[in-house]
């Protein structure tokens, strides 16, 4: 037994829905059970103390010497979450940061996913298990800031009471400070010497913990510039451990995979001999995707690896050389997507938006407004496929234990539990029915009602197909998930960038697949940059068509937007296929619909529609928004800010086009479009036909609302008062009015503005450009303002603004993936260019805008933190396009801008 007090937690699932209105302390281990397990009494006692129903042990461990381990359950990819969440807890706990060790959690969705109904019966789930560790949607702070404070304050309260008990004084006379409790008469004890007495004080109630939360003025780190940065020293000295740096302390071989260049194509034949002749090459073997990877019509494949051939060697160089020798020997069956041509597909998308699509939001009558109003403005905007290209190419290490039929994996994963689940499903339970059973979900209060209906329909159909009752089905799903959690261990390394690419665990599944063939040997699958660029889950290609009618004053009376994009749901969920029985196809359709309202094949999901289309923020009488169909022929996924990329590029560019048509200042016109500001409530949007608004909202307030009876808290409706405020602020900080006047007299100098809400935060960008006579573009400065609610880590919010702005600038200027004969044409950073230091603006000025007092009233005075990682990105491309026009350049309606201008 180690000297560590493992503050464990029992399987809290048993308490779900207990609804007693009180904390559940229920479990205590019988003494004989404890001694049978060889547990010392001390450990057991602490277990009881801290087993308060909230899963403290999964987040905090305290050693006898006072070292406090804080578990980072979310992956670090540059956003600072490892530091920030730990520091929030440490701040409330009054832990001495020098005695805090931050540890990275393994994948275990259920540990970190649904704890809070247990702590606070009746309160809604905070985060679904599948989302607990999934670092996407810019939500680490939104979801976990309050829980971390609550945990820290709760433990501190226990220590204060323990000291009071020990000294026989009133707890009100005691206070905690930096790992110690101080009492009257100069008494003090360090936390670790109070662990035993803590047992006698009982467990604080949620109300008591809420009352014990530190007031703002006592915060050491939260909301300040003094947040610790856990990994920075290791990062600048080369000690930080990323995916490829991990030493699993096992015999290890390195694999490189030659993949089919066309999505869902297959290996027909290959000759292993030339590769095996390369010194250091040990094995050459086919990578087999499971049979159920999807139908023939689309690219539905979820995270199944591409078919290909692996070269397994003693080191990376040998693997690379072996792969080179292998390449010419492979014959591919390229399959139906071999005719995909991105240039021709652009024509298809434009044709799609030239006709009416599916109406997603409609107000008034745009048709008669277009017919009756004098001036009509119209434009189309194109955004190509984009690859995320994190600096660290995908990499994963896996080892297989044949006796136990278990995997252990090390991977830089944005979704550790996705890697765990899909790896387990594909390699341990390779049966399409299991995949469906996995989707079965007990009705709960998390899903929106529109999703709930689809989920229930799916549950009923699947139960019928399997000839079991629904309870049995749920039991099967729970057993399946538990079995896979028990048999697949996923360790998370630092991520050398993610940007959405590492949400997809295909590379970890490749490593596990190869490891299964060589039990006991660790297999590291190393992707090259070429692999990363040619086998991404690309951000969708899209075309937006916008049309507005302007009245005599230049104000739009009507706005129509048609959005066509290749939904990532076509990749995540296989389409119905003649190869499947009808019942299976019905299930696939309802599973897709139940999952974030994934929509029907050929159209977008609620997630994509909610990212800048359905929540269109302008105050216009007649609005008509449509989603036009688009069928994908390549894998699509997520890139930093996802659908906001193309929706914001279209709408925010078009706002400027309207301003120019109206002969108005771009900033003044934008403010007029937004109006004085209002809240777009879900019911209002529903009244305009929005079926299943995905607002990227999480009921993050729930924790501090004991005994809440609300099914879902109101969330964070689009609030155009906040959008207006960031526009006004960026205009002020950039000196907009003065510079616009001054630049009118300067040839080739211009300012552009754009503002966009995403991931519940509001960002406005002003770009200052110069354009010389050779059409060479220089980005001089960028000003960015973000309202992300309460900014927990000021420095990292600024860092995300700087980085997110440069990320947006990168794809706006340079980014484009093209496809010919089904294969991606770009190879490396020479032909898939990304922003370099000399192309970046010398100065990026960033500002954090606090929500106004009026806005804060809607949140009881305390606007919670919202996204900071993705929101800085979408408004950059349109602000840049608008600046180029202001500088006397052309109106650019397609990304990348280097096709129109010289980017040196």
């Amino acid at each position, binding site marked *: 037994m180690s000297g560590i007090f493992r503050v464990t937690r029992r399987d809290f699932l048993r308490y779900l829905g207990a609804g007693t209105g009180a904390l559940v302390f229920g479990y205590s281990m019988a003494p004989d059970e404890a001694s049978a397990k060889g547990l010392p009494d001390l450990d057991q006692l602490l277990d009881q103390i801290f087993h308060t129903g909230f899963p403290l042990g999964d987040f905090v461990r305290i050693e006898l010497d006072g070292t406090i381990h804080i578990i980072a359950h979310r992956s670090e990819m540059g956003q600072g979450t490892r530091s920030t969440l730990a520091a929030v807890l440490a701040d409330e706990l009054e832990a001495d940061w020098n005695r805090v060790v931050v540890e990275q959690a393994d994948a275990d969705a259920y540990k970190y996913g649904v704890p809070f109904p247990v702590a606070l019966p009746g309160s809604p789930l905070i985060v679904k298990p599948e989302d607990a560790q999934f670092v996407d949607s810019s939500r680490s702070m939104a979801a976990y800031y309050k829980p971390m404070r609550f945990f820290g304050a709760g433990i501190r309260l226990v220590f204060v009471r323990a000291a009071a008990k020990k000294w026989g004084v009133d707890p009100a006379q005691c206070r905690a400070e930096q790992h110690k409790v101080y009492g009257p008469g100069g008494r003090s004890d360090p936390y670790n010497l109070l662990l035993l007495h803590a047992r006698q004080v009982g467990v604080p109630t949620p109300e008591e913990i809420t009352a014990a939360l530190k007031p703002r003025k006592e915060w050491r780190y939260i909301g300040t510039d003094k947040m610790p940065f856990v990994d920075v020293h290791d990062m600048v000295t*080369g000690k930080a451990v990323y995916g490829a740096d991990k030493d699993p302390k096992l015999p290890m071989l390195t694999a490189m995979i030659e993949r089919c260049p066309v999505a869902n194509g297959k290996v027909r034949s290959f000759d292993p001999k030339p590769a095996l002749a390369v010194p250091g090459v040990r094995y050459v073997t086919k990578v087999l995707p499971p049979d159920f990877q999807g139908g023939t019509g689309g690219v539905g494949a979820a995270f199944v690896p591409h078919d290909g051939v692996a070269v397994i060697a003693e080191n990376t160089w040998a693997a690379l050389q072996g792969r080179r020798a292998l390449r010419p020997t492979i014959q591919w069956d390229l399959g139906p997507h071999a005719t995909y041509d991105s240039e021709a597909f652009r024509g298809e998308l434009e044709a799609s938006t030239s006709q009416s699509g599916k109406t997603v939001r409609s107000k008034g009558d745009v048709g008669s407004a277009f017919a009756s109003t004098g001036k009509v403005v119209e434009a189309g905007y194109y955004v190509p496929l984009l690859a995320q290209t994190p600096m660290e190419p995908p990499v994963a290490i896996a080892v297989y234990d044949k006796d136990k039929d278990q995997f252990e994996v090390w991977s830089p994963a944005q979704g550790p539990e996705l890697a765990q689940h899909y790896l387990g499903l594909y390699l341990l339970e390779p049966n399409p029915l299991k995949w469906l059973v996995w989707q079965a979900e007990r009705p709960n209060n998390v899903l929106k009602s529109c999703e709930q209906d689809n989920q229930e329909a799916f549950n009923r159909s699947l139960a019928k197909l399997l000839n079991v009752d629904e309870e049995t089905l749920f039991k099967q799903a729970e057993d399946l998930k538990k079995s896979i959690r028990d048999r697949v261990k996923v360790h998370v390394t630092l991520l050398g960038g993610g940007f959405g690419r590492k949400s997809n665990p295909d590379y970890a599944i490749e490593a596990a697949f190869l490891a299964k063939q060589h039990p006991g040997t660790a297999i590291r699958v190393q992707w090259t940059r070429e692999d990363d660029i040619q086998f991404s889950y690309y951000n969708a290609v899209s075309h937006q068509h916008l049309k507005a009618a302007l009245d005599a004053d230049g104000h739009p009376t009507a706005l129509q937007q048609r959005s066509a994009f290749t939904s990532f749901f076509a990749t995540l969920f296989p389409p119905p296929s003649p190869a499947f029985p009808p019942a299976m196809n019905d299930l696939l359709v309802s599973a897709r619909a139940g999952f974030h309202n994934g929509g029907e094949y050929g159209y977008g999901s609620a997630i994509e529609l909610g990212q800048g289309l359905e929540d269109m923020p302008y105050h216009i009488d007649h609005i008509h928004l449509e989603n036009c169909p688009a069928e994908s022929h390549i894998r699509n996924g997520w890139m930093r800010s996802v659908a906001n990329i193309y929706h914001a590029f279209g709408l925010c560019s078009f706002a400027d086009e309207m301003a120019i048509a109206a002969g108005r200042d771009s900033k003044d016109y934008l403010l007029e479009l937004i109006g004085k500001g209002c809240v777009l409530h879900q019911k209002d949007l529903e009244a305009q036909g929005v079926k299943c608004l995905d607002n990227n909202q999480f009921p993050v307030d729930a924790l501090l609302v004991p005994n809440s009876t609300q099914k879902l808290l109101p969330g964070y409706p689009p609030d155009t008062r906040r959008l207006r405020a960031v526009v006004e602020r960026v205009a002020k900080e950039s000196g907009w009015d003065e510079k616009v006047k001054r630049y009118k007299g300067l040839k080739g100098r211009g300012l552009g503005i754009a503002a966009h809400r995403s991931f519940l935060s509001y960002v406005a960008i002003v770009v200052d450009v110069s354009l010389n006579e050779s059409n060479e573009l220089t980005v001089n400065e960028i000003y960015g303002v973000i309202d992300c609610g309460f900014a927990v880590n000021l420095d990292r919010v600024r860092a995300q603004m700087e980085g997110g702005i440069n990320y947006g600038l990168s794809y706006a200027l340079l980014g484009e993936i093209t496809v010919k004969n089904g294969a991606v044409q770009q190879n490396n950073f020479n032909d898939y260019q990304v922003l*370099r230091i000399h192309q970046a603006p010398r100065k990026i000025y960033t500002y954090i805008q606090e929500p106004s007092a009026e806005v804060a009233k809607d949140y009881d005075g305390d606007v919670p933190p919202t996204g900071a990682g993705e929101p800085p990105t979408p408004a950059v491309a349109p602000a840049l396009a608008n600046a180029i026009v202001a500088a006397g350049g052309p109106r650019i309606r397609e990304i990348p801008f280097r096709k129109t201008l010289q980017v040196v």
Partner: protein
Amino acid sequence: MSLFQLRVNGRLYTVDVDGDMPLLWALRDILGLKGTKFGCGVAQCGACTVHLDGRAVRSCATPVGVACLSEITTIEGLSRDGSHPCQKAWVELGVPQCGYCQPGQIMSASALLAANPNPSDEDIDNAMRGNICRCGTYPRIREAIHKAAGSKS
């Protein structure tokens, strides 16, 4: 396969490899010095930057057979304890985000400062344009180089 002697961070190593093997893989896979990162393999991104006799080079495109002729310094050998002025400036300004490219950035920046103790913004552009950072930390890299140089931009 042949035997090569590599002088890395003041230590002498003997490796038995193909002379064409890029120094990057010898450092990482053979010597276990993993601070030098793989980013592109074709000298396009700078993540693998090391010093050969004090000059910044891309180790992914430098064969062992060439590297063995020079004194090699990697991020592990830039300073004993992270005390190089670049490393200190990087920490003080919170330059890294994901951190993956930063060893290469620091090796390029430290070679620049060794040759040019007070670089202008143009000098920085020229010396650092071979180092990509996808997190977009460029403004802070620029500021940190000025800071390490003891100058203001």
